[in-house]
């Protein structure tokens, strides 16, 4: 499956989906003009990729697929779609694919840490919270 890259703008995050390096990373600010138009293709790619590797879970045993969330800021409309991404990632987990989810937050930005905890509270995997100094 091809890699996927969306460049960062002042209102949308950078999205890097590198299937060869087992990395999905989203970073920056999120307040898109049309939140559905921005996030729908990302959700579709994740879903397609999961379906493509669901029979290859052994490939990830020693080399987990890493999901990095490095938001500086996201608005309330984006929160719903970030939750949808986390729900899709949870399907990787329930399908038995070895994953590692990292949720980054700036030192002192405890709201960002809290939103990560709240959005994943009902999901099977638990992210690792990493403070950026």
């Amino acid at each position, binding site marked *: 499956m091809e890699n996927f890259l969306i460049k960062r703008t002042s*209102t949308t995050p950078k999205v890097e989906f590198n299937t060869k390096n087992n990395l999905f990373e989203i970073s920056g600010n999120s307040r898109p003009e049309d939140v559905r138009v921005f996030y729908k293709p990302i959700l579709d790619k994740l879903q397609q990729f999961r379906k493509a590797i669901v029979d290859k879970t052994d490939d990830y045993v020693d080399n987990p697929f890493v999901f990095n969330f490095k938001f500086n*800021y996201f*608005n*309330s*409309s984006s929160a*719903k779609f970030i*939750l949808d991404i986390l729900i899709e990632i949870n399907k990787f987990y329930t399908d038995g694919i070895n994953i590692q989810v990292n949720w980054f937050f*700036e030192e002192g930005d405890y*709201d960002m840490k809290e939103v990560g905890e709240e*959005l994943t509270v009902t999901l099977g995997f638990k992210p690792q919270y990493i403070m950026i100094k």
Partner: protein
Amino acid sequence: MLFCKIHRYIFIINMVKEVELLKYKGVLNFEQIGVILDKVQPELDNYSSDTLVKKRIYSVLVEVLENVHNHGYNNQEYLPQCILTRYDDNFVIKISNVVLNANIEKFKNILDYVNSLSEDEINKSFYGKIKEKTILEESEAGVGIIQIAKKASSKLVYNFKTINDKISYFTLKVTI
């Protein structure tokens, strides 16, 4: 034995330091919101070293400006206005814009509902809305207001001033 008491009267004068960090009056579209946010970021860095406070102010600004953009009523005579002021350790965002009288009841219901909630209830309400399977446009406005209340340090203060039979001027004051 005579005790003399000397009373000293100390007059403490509370000097409130008031600094206006942002004042904008004009049309609010998606691009203009970006211009305003770009201007306010360095101001916040100058006036606060607290990351959490700065992020909360930024977040409230985005939500109030986007609310006006998405749900306000365009009127060339009464333009939207946004002011960010620092009063000592508090920051106050005051935003005003025209709304249709037909929508006042709906806005009041959302604001009064949010103001009736405790801090814990606001949190539960916010994440409850986010986790709803489908978010309708009307519900999105609600999520924005709940997000504002979540970041505010006191209850939301609002006012509707009637302009005519069709429109009113809405003002919302948020303290962080």
